[in-house]
C-alpha cells in the first residue's frame, strides 16, 4: 500500500483525474456495473423477463457443480477445441510467417489472401462451411466416389469438433501470422548476420537465434489463441448449433442454451461466473509458464 502514501498522491496532477474520469465512468457504467449486476443475478431465479425474481442463494451454483452434467461435459469439447485451435493456428501461422519473411514480391499479395478470412463474419463463415462440409461434400462424394467426401465432417459426432476447429484455424491464421511476422521482422539484423558469420544456417539459426526472440510473440499468441478459442461461439453455433447431439457444444453454447433457450438467466449467469474463474486460472497459469521463456530486456 506504499503507493497510497500522501507524498505519492500529492505528486499526481489533478488534471490526470480529469482526463481519466470519462473513460473511467464508461468503464464503470459498461463493465463494472454490468459485471456486478450479473454477479447479483447469478444468485437469483431471474428468467430474463419477470421483475420480481427471487434470491436463491447458492442454489444455482450448487445445481451446476453437483448435478449439471451437460455443463461439465461441454468443458471437454471446449478443451479439445481450444487445444486443436491454439496449437494448430500457431503452428500454421508461424510456418506461414516464416515463409512470408523472405522478402519476395508475392509476399504482400499472399499476406492479403491469408488475412482475408479473418475479416469475414463468423456467421457467414459458419454457414458457408456448413454447406461445404455438408451438402457439397455429399455432392462431391457422388460425383467422384472418393472416400474423403463420404466422411461425416459435421454429422459424425466424433469428427465434428475437429472440423469446427479446422475452420477456426483457417479463419484465424491471418491474424496470428501478422503477430509472428512482426516479431520476425523485429529481430535485429546484426544478430542474424553475426550468427551467419559464425556458420549458423537454416534450422539451426531458427532454433538457436530466431526462436528465443520469438518467445514473446509465442507467449502472446498462445494466450490470445486460448482466450479466442474459449470465447468462440458464433462460428461453431452457426456451423453446427452445438450438434450433432451436443458433440460440439462448448461451454458458451451450453450457457447460451441455459440462458436463452431455457430462459434461465440467473442459472446461465452463474455458469458464466464459474467460466470466468476457470479462465482466470488458466490465464494465470499460462502467463506463469510462458513468461519464463520470454527474453528479458
Amino acid at each position, binding site marked *: 500500500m506504499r503507493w497510497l502514501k500522501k507524498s505519492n498522491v500529492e505528486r499526481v496532477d489533478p488534471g490526470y483525474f480529469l482526463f481519466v474520469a470519462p473513460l473511467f465512468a464508461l468503464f464503470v457504467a459498461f463493465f463494472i456495473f454490468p459485471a456486478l449486476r450479473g454477479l447479483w443475478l447469478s444468485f437469483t431465479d431471474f*428468467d*430474463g*423477463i*419477470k*421483475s*420480481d425474481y427471487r434470491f436463491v442463494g447458492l442454489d444455482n451454483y450448487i*445445481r451446476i457443480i453437483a*448435478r*449439471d*452434467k*451437460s455443463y461439465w461435459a461441454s468443458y471437454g469439447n471446449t478443451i479439445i477445441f481450444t487445444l486443436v485451435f491454439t496449437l494448430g493456428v500457431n503452428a500454421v501461422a508461424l510456418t506461414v510467417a516464416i515463409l512470408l519473411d523472405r522478402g519476395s514480391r508475392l509476399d504482400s499479395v499472399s499476406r492479403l489472401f491469408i488475412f482475408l478470412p479473418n475479416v469475414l463474419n463468423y456467421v457467414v463463415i459458419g454457414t458457408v462451411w*456448413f454447406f461445404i462440409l*455438408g*451438402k457439397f*461434400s*455429399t455432392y462431391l462424394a457422388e460425383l467422384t466416389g472418393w472416400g474423403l467426401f463420404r466422411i*461425416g465432417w*459435421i*454429422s*459424425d*459426432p466424433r469428427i465434428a469438433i475437429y472440423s469446427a476447429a479446422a475452420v477456426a484455424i483457417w479463419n484465424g491464421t491471418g491474424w496470428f501470422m501478422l503477430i509472428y511476422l512482426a516479431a520476425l521482422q523485429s529481430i535485429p539484423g546484426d544478430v542474424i548476420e553475426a550468427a551467419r558469420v559464425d556458420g549458423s544456417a537454416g534450422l539451426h539459426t531458427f532454433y538457436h537465434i530466431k526462436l528465443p526472440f520469438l518467445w514473446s510473440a509465442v507467449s502472446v499468441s498462445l494466450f490470445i489463441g486460448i482466450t479466442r478459442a474459449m470465447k468462440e461461439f458464433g462460428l461453431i453455433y452457426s456451423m453446427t*448449433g*452445438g*450438434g*450433432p*447431439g*451436443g*458433440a460440439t*457444444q462448448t461451454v458458451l453454447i451450453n450457457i447460451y*442454451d*441455459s440462458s*436463452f*433457450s*431455457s*430462459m*434461465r438467466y440467473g*442459472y446461465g449467469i452463474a455458469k458464466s461466473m464459474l467460466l470466468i474463474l476457470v479462465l482466470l486460472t488458466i490465464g494465470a497459469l499460462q502467463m506463469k509458464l510462458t513468461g519464463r521463456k520470454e527474453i528479458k530486456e
Partner: protein
Amino acid sequence: MRKIRKAAAVFAALCVAVSMQAFAEGKADQGAAKGPVTIRFIGGYRDYVPATTAIAADYMAANPNVKIEMVDAGTNLNEFFKVMLAGDQLVDIAHIPTTLVPSLVESKKLLPVTKRPVASRLLPFAKDPVTIGGEVYSIPLGVGAYGLVYNEDLFKAAGIKKVPVTRDELAAAAESLKRAGIVPFAPMLGEAWANGQYIEYVLAQVLNDNPGLADSILSGKAKLTDPVFAETTAYLDLIRKHVPSDAMNYKFSDGAAYFGAGKAAMAVHGDWIMPPALKANPALPARIAPIPWSNDPAKNKLILFGNFGFGILVSPATAKDPSRIAEIEKFFDYLHTPENIARIAAATGGPGGGTLAGTKFDKLHPIYSQPADYNAAGKVAGMAQFWKLPNAKTAAANTYVQGFMVGSNDAPRILSEIQNAIDLAR
C-alpha cells in the same frame, strides 16, 4: 488555457440547455394525455407486417385522433422483447411469443384480453396455452398443425393405398417406399430445433391423454422415464432408420425443399414446411395426417396450436396514463375483426386466424383446410399441457434427439436427459 476553459464552459452550458429542453418536451408529451393518442405497434412476425401496416393505415384514416407508430422488431421477436424490457421501452400492442406469456403476466406487463370480442371466438387449442388464471392474454392469429406431412403421388407410386394410422403401418409404408426407390423421410436434422420437435409433439400427446401428468412431473411425483412414455421413442427409431444417411447436412429449409421437390415421401413436421416446399413445387400434392407414433390409433392426434398472437402490453405511456387503454383496445378490436384476420391470412399465404380454424380455405393449399376436418372428427389436440413444463426441456430435447438420430446416444437417454433438464429447472 483560459480560452479552453471558456470554450468548455460554453459547451457544458449548451449541453445543460439542450438537456433541459429535451426534458421539458418529454414532460409536455406526457402531460398531453387528452390530445392525440400514439399507439406503438409491433405489426407482427416476418410476413405479417405488410398486412398489419395496411390495417393500421386504414384505422388512422378513420380515426384522426389516433396515430399508430409501427415498430420494426427485426427477425427475432424473443430477443427484441428482452431489449424492450431491459430499456423499459415496451410498445402498446405486439406479437407475443407464447413462451414469454407467463413471465410477462407475472411481471404485470401484459393485460388480459378476455373481454375483447375476438377472445370468445378462439378454439380451445389456440386459447389454452395463453390462458392464465382464467384470463386470455393474447389472440393467436395463425393456426399451426404438426403431423405427418406426406406426398400423395409418391405414396401411390409405392403402392401405398392407405395413409398409415399406426406405427406398424408407418414402418410398412416406409419399407414400401424404400423398395420403390423413394426416400421415406425428408432429411432435416441439421438444426437441433427441428430434431427436438420429433419428440416434443409426441410427449405432448401422452401428457394430453393423462390428466395431471404434467403437474406430477412438475412436482417430481412422475418422471419422463416412467413406462407411460415408453412408446414415444419407438417411432423416433423408425424415423432414424428411414432418413438418408447424410440427413445432418440438411437444415430445415433444405429438408423442406427436398420434400417439395418430390425427393422424399414424408416429413414429420408442421405445416410451416409448406412455404419452402411449395417454392420447389407450387402444385405439391401434400397432405397432413396425425403422426402414427403409437400402435393405438386413438392416441394419434394432429397437434394444433395458436401461433404467436397479439397482446396488449403495459407500455411506459400506459403505466403513466391508464386512460390510453380504451383507445388501444379499440384498435385491438379493429385489428381482430374477421375481415382483418382474413386480410392477414391472405397476405401471409398461411392459414391465419386462430378464430377461423374450422374454416376451409378456397384460395390456399388444401393442406391448410385439413385441420378443420380433423377438428370436426375430434382427432386434434393442443400443446397446453406440454408447455406447463419448464423451457429447459426443449433445449434438452433438441440436443439429445439429434444425438440419437446420428447414433451418439440411445433412446432411453433422450427421456432421461429431458427429465434431468426439467429437474434442474424445477
